[in-house]
């Protein structure tokens, strides 16, 4: 299979996923009517679908660790962020969930989502078993949401103060960078499934030859993705915190 064929034919249109998204859209309308911020929800669903049906998903399914990492980052950082942004200001968490809004839990969820699913056994299992894969996807979305809640909750009062938010994001960035560094420099495969892929799509020769992605280089790219671009996402959030801080209360001129 050539690269062009691969990019055009491996979209995995899943009826269930599309149904899920449609239901989410309908549910959103019923819950928030016109108070919601639809563009953000659209973004969340688009990224969600892209992560799970595009060729990235086909590659993540046993071929490339780096593609898995792209999927992972999209699901844990991008989709939940858009989801939280789409909530109207009036939104409040139902009672039982408010316990999850402690900053420590949010931090552990965000960092844990990175570390936990890269324990070799779990990483392997999520790639080989579709049931565990579903659990993984769900857990990533939930943990990502718990993480971002501290920063992107609908109302200002529910969020961390800018200074605390910066510390929260910076430490999370560091914790994930450490994992990225370990993945980048590990001489052994963290997720051994990707070492000897089962070539269901007949694309392996292109990947190894034309794209030049040996399994070592593949894992290195995966680690670097977690290390560098992911930190840029956190950095963007840090800058947003600074912007929020500097655009804080402006008193009337007459007070001066």
């Amino acid at each position: 299979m050539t690269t062009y064929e691969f990019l055009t034919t491996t979209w995995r249109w899943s009826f269930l996923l599309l149904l899920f998204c449609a239901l989410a859209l309908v549910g959103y309308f019923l819950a928030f009517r016109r108070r919601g911020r639809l563009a953000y929800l659209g973004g969340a669903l688009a990224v969600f679908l892209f992560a799970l049906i595009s060729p990235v998903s086909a590659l993540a399914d046993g071929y490339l660790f780096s593609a898995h990492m792209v999927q992972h980052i999209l699901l844990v950082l991008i989709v939940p962020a858009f989801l939280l942004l789409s909530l109207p200001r009036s939104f409040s968490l139902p009672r039982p969930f408010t316990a999850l809004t402690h900053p420590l839990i949010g931090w552990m969820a965000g960092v844990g989502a990175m570390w936990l699913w890269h324990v070799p056994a779990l990483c392997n299992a999520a790639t080989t078993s579709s049931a565990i894969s579903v659990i993984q996807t769900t857990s990533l979305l939930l943990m990502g949401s718990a993480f971002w809640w501290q920063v992107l909750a609908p109302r200002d009062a529910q969020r961390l103060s800018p200074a605390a938010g910066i510390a929260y994001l910076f430490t999370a960035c560091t914790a994930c960078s450490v994992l990225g560094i370990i993945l980048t420099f590990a001489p052994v495969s963290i997720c051994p499934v990707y070492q000897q892929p089962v070539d269901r799509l007949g694309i392996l020769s292109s990947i190894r030859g034309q794209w030049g992605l040996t399994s070592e280089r593949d894992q290195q790219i995966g680690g670097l993705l977690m290390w560098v671009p992911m930190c840029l996402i956190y950095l963007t959030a840090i800058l947003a915190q600074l912007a929020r801080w500097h655009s804080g209360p402006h008193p009337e001129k007459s007070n001066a």
Partner: protein
Amino acid sequence: MNGTTTAPASPATLLDPAEHWHHRLAWLSTVDHKRIGVLYLLTGLFFFVVGGLEALVLRVQLAVPKNHFLQPDTFNQLFTMHGTTMIFLVVIPVGLGFVNYFLPLQIGARDMAFPRLNAFGFWLIPFGGILLHFSVLAGGAPAVGWFSYAPLSETPYSSTLGVDYWAVALFVLGIGSVATAINIIATVICRRAPGMTMRRLPLFTWINFVNAFMIILALPVLNAGLAMLLIDRQLEGHFFLPFHGGSAVLWQHIFWAFGHPEVYIMVFPAFGIVSEVIPVFSRKPIFGYAFVAASSVAIAVLSMGVWGHHMFTVGMGRAANSFFAISSLLIAIPTGVKVLNWTATMIGGRLRFDVPMLFCIAFLIQFLLAGITGISHAVVPLDWQTKNSYFLVAHFHFVAVGAIVFAFFAAVYFWFPKMSGRMLSERLGKWTFWLMVIGFNMTFIIQHFLGLLGMPRRVFTYPNLPHWGWMNMLSTVGVLFMAAAALFLVWNLAVSFFRGKIAGDNPWNAWTLEWATTSPPPHENFHALPPIRSRRPLWDIANPDRPDPVVGENTSEIESPDKTKTGILTFIVSEAAFFAILLLAYLYFYARPQPGPGPRELDVPRTLVFSLCLFASSFTLWRSEIALGRQRRGSMLGWLVLTITLGGVFLVGQGMEYWKLFQTGVDVSTNLFATSFFTLTGFHGLHVFLGLVALLIFLWLAWRGDFAPGRSSAFEAAGYYWHFVDIVWVFVLLTVYILPLAR
């Protein structure tokens, strides 16, 4: 506050001779931030002359082809000392000196948060400087470059003690910088005057506040690497020695993981200075305060993740190169934002071309060039061609001299009146400026072309190839101009200190708080502070009809947390960085097992038992704190004794582990597992021991009944540290003992 000048009362008229002698001697024992700041600056100036003379000798050697003025080894020693001196004994101390003097003044504080820690941080600098230079007497200065690449820096290739002194000196200097950075953070957080909210901080203060975070995160990385290097050299460890399975590239990773943030650590004080001087001499507030402030944070965060661009030529692989290229290009954005802010501040302003401003304008132009050649080094193919040539030498001297030294000169001319009460001579200042501009550009612009013509760096001489001769000669002649400029500066300082024009409180009509007090400021800094509602309190006083808009909420209330806790938390962050490097190094070698003993030799069940003791001690210490809070002295002492016992038991357990390993012939030099195991657990054990010493001191104090109500914060702070040491052990236990079980 009315701008009239009273000459500072001379101590000679007030004190009898014995007191006068003591007053002068007090410079040695001072804990006053202003005096310490001056000491920093004088130390920096002294080593600037030393490092400059070294540079002069190096350039004389390079003036003509095939020169034999210096022996190759002497050249290497001089260029190592030049780099190390300029970075660790000039740029860092001078930056910290200005911060020490002016940061407390700018925020209306009486002193730094921890005056004695401040003195400690300073005195480590001469101590480190002496250690470094003592190597000359102990068999020869280091000759391995300021980067000290392994394996050249290892015993088989550098057998004299030079590298050891180098490493110990840098270790000491690193501790000093971290101590001062902790002090800066605690001062800004806990010692601001009423009304000086974080959003109203002058940019010099803000930028150096951010810088302090870089220092506490980056310097421990170097110190971890230096500790490993010393263990290699002194205890025959194997970290960076390839033929025992060690990794020379790991040294480069550790060094540049420190080294790149270090570049920004050096340049941030310069950014701060320029952000103060340009607005004052443009008679306009800074353009886009929030952008300058936020871009500093962006640079600080990015700087931690771009070190790979120092290693493109090492062979990290195409994947790593690409990522580091992108992140290195990105860092140009916040830096560019700053340059735009400074330029835009000047546009439409009423520019005054006094000497400080002249240096800042030269800074802008030269820093722009440094940035452009800097970006070229983020482009991997170009970097491959130019990295090991004089092009790179030119680039980093454009940063180090063209930007940093020029900004420091600006700061000297800007703030000398405040420090001494007298103006520096403008006429001599202009001589310094023009000699500096001509000399600097003559020396370093041509080096770009030398590099592009292929002249490699770090060579002691070169063949007579077309153009190389006259280009090098031009470069050397430029150094003479710079040396003359330095002479003019020293002359100006000396003459103006005694005979300069009296400055008055605010000679430049500046707006930040350091200009609201006398020149020099009294011991307690301020008799009374003006109201602070904006970033330019002195503007508001001078222009009551059109004050700056109030920044943030119109309040003079500020939060000031407990300084001891803030300090210890900051210290913990820097310790965490240190242990993170040791842990990562352990993992690095764990994943590449060598023949010989491995984790299987370790007694996991016994260690788990002793670990439980350590974890229990966190609980007992917590109980002790509660007892202290409830004023139950007996209970507090009991829990504290139990804590110390449990900690001691843990150390005994570690001792047993070590003893068993020694019995079976395993020590630091056995193989890489042993080297990394003993280093990691040894440093942890050392921290437990120091924690125990601290707790014993507290036990003694509590025994004497020293803990009055409201004095428990120090005890809580010590508790934080103890808990931190326990948490480190969780990670060590998981990595060293539990991880191998999963295999």
